[in-house]
């Protein structure tokens, strides 16, 4: 990568108009210098300061169909509405330059924490009919659910259900990673259940209910990343060692 290209790419990453940042960066002797002070002169693109409405974002991002799909899946309650909007705005709302989308998503995420038990209940309702093509949104929401302040048994029940859910393994579409949703739930389970015996019990319950052995192995591999001894022992007991 040439130095000029490097600077261009840095500038683009920042969400900035290129000219001002290039003028600023030009004073640097190398992109790999160790400056002792932050660089000066960068400004935020003024076009990105305006606050767009949710409807305007839907039009701009061509998300109208997705919004409809999400509204169809999630209950028409305050929590369900917030969940539908969060799912619709994913991944745009987790990009720092997308100020309007990030703002709206963060506000909806905050709504979930005002009634976390209801939020999780509405999430489970929505997951029943959420279209499989929205697997990335499901995996994101599983992680969000893991942060809700709900009784431990409630979230563990939700996560083990996700870990054992039948999923499609798409031989014809490598980009379809729906089969990794149970593994995503396993990651969250380990974050909310630190005790080895309880964690082991939850994995055992989920894996016994998971109908696909290949998916079960993927779930176990996430356990292995945190506690290899327990995971491999469980794999041997459930006949899920690598084949």
């Amino acid at each position: 990568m040439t130095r000029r290209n490097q600077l261009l790419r840095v500038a683009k990453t920042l969400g900035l108009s290129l000219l001002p940042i290039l003028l600023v960066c030009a004073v640097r002797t190398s992109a790999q210098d160790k400056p002792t002070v932050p660089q000066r002169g960068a400004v935020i693109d003024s076009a990105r300061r305006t606050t767009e409405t949710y409807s305007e974002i839907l039009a701009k991002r061509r998300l109208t169909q997705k919004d409809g799909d999400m509204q169809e899946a999630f209950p028409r309650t305050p929590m369900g509405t917030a969940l539908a909007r969060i799912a619709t705005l994913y991944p745009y709302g987790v990009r720092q330059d997308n100020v309007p989308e990030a703002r709206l998503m963060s506000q909806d995420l905050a709504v979930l924490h005002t009634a976390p038990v209801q939020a999780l209940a509405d999430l489970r309702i929505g997951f029943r009919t959420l279209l499989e093509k929205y697997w990335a949104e499901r995996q994101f929401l599983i992680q969000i659910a893991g942060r809700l302040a709900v009784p431990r048994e409630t979230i563990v029940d939700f996560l083990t259900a996700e870990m054992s859910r039948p999923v499609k393994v798409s031989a014809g579409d490598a980009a379809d990673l729906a089969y990794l949703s149970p593994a995503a739930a396993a990651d969250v389970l380990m974050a909310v259940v630190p005790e080895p015996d309880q964690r082991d019990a939850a994995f055992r319950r989920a894996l016994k209910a998971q109908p696909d052995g290949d998916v079960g192995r993927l779930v176990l591999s996430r356990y292995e990343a945190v506690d290899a001894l327990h995971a491999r022992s469980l794999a041997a007991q459930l006949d899920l060692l690598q084949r």
Partner: protein
Amino acid sequence: MRRAVLLLCGIGGIAMAAYAGAPICSKIVGSCWFQMPSYDQTNPNFAAYLTPSTFVNETNNGNTLVPNAFSCAAGNCPNPFDMSWLPYGPIPGDPYAVSGSGWFTAICCPTAESMALMGAIASKTTTTKINAGSWTARFKAAHAPAVPVGLANQSGPIFPFVPDPRQHMHVADIQRVIDMALVQGTMPNAGGAEDYITTIGGDFAPPGTGSNGLTDNISNATFIADIKAGTVVVIAIHYYIAHVTGSGPYNITFSSDPGGHCLAVEGFSSIRVLGPPRNFVSVALNIIDPVYGVTDRIDIVNLANGTYTRAGASRTLTLPNGWTSVGVWPDSANPVNSVWDIADQEQITFIDEYHTLNVP
């Protein structure tokens, strides 16, 4: 070709590698990963510390201030956080958040690099040392880099340290991200460089190797080869607008759309599904997003230059920046799995920067 590459990366053959600084690899499936923390650039504690005086000077230098995020008249809203590392203040719902606010901070790159560097340190062999007094030694120890900068001696805290509402970041983790931001000149309202980890190989003995990798033709295989070799990776994605012109044959070109994002690569998962009708290997990259510290799982589809025909229709794709092929960040609402999925004026996200550090 792609299938062949995946098969070469096959499940059965993956075992703990003999080389030094290896990642951890599964004995159950074909997955490898680094022990990498999940850092969150929206951690409220970033709002508690003001950036160094140089940043204050910056805002007084006639340049645009961090835009006011609050629901009141522009310029008339007190914002105690606008010179902090989280310039709109804590995000909605977090402690000390201002009602009606949103969030903004451009520290995704140092956040991603800090995760990656922690992963590299965790995976190094016991015989590899971090040179005493080096920048990396101070980073690992979470020392403030130098007076007057650094968390410990910056202005603040505006509010006491609060528990991490999303990940498990402690004071030391906040300090590490700020250290990384300071050393490469990242400003919380405007960003900065994104490749400092490529420069610090000399902080290790024996030395590590950093690289600004390909911007062209980044694929699943690129990641898997590096991860298996014990190389941590930070990527950047950027946004491009597609232009579909002509009336058949159609030409597809792209122009840059401002903005981008840095992410850290934790590892990959692969699954070998045998027996009809499933007899294939599927691969997913596990990528930690500095926003909320969530993990994304993606499979990269590549677009390549060329002329494509289907049912009498023809489309010629020409990538920007002289690229011959580029990886596409997936989008469920408007998926781009081939040249036929591209619509005029559609924004597409390309994975086009690749920064690495290999520590033996």
